């Protein structure tokens, strides 16, 4: 169990760091921003999940990822709008909006993605 968590941590850290490095080297900023929504955690998780629990389990996770990705779009759009329009402190707005991501993601899951919905 502990070894699995450690492997998960290392693989996740490597994928996120690799995509993050790509985001650093690309210019302009709007293009580099694409890598903020790279499927780094998804690739790490799904690669490990397919190996340990099989493709159907991984496909179920990927189906719910649709809700998470739609919530991420709402999150990033709201962050862009608030930072551009009202210029609040970046840390405050991007951290507070994580609750919005959670609310949108769970709502989409409840309405469309939960088993039996």
């Amino acid at each position: 169990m502990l070894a699995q968590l450690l492997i998960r941590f290392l693989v996740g850290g490597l994928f996120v760091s690799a995509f993050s490095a790509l985001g650093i080297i690309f210019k302009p900023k709007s293009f580099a921003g694409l890598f903020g929504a790279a499927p780094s955690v998804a690739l790490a998780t799904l690669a490990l999940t397919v190996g340990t629990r099989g493709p159907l389990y991984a496909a179920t996770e990927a189906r719910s990822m649709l809700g998470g990705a739609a919530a991420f779009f709402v999150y990033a759009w709201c962050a862009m709008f608030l930072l551009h329009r009202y210029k609040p402190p970046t840390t405050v707005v991007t951290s507070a909006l994580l609750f919005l991501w959670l609310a949108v993601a769970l709502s989409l899951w409840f309405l469309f993605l939960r088993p039996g919905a």
Partner: protein
Amino acid sequence: MRARVDLSALADTTWKEYALRFLLGGAITVATGLIARKFGPAVGGLFLAFPAIFPATATLIATREKDEKRRAGLDGKFRGRDAAAIEARGTATGTLGLLAFALIVVGELRSSAIRPEVHQSWIEGHLLPNHQPWLVLVAAAAAWFLVAVLFWRLRIALQRNSS
């Protein structure tokens, strides 16, 4: 506007910044696994698209931009937040690619897991007949990049036409 590569930016990033991204990435991957174990894959899957490192990245960009302006004798507070807003706009575009990624993975992996010869919907099994999971993930990552770049170019073209 064209995308270009600037490798010197790698040297401008400190080891502390790299370490922060590694730690956050590792932590959210572990958390996703634990959530899936506790609540099932249908809930855990939501967190595959959790904006794990965006707050840290946006804050670093805003701070760096602010410091640059301060060195030039200007108050760069608002300029830093504008830079973070531009990053967020790119990230919002990237999430459209994330949807394409998830659609391909769900379609192809379901198809390979249930009955390889029977495809249950328009997307299942049409792209990768061999259904090798690693190939599905590589193809989905490529689709993420292509869709994200396509929408980025589309937005640039629309902006150019409206100005």
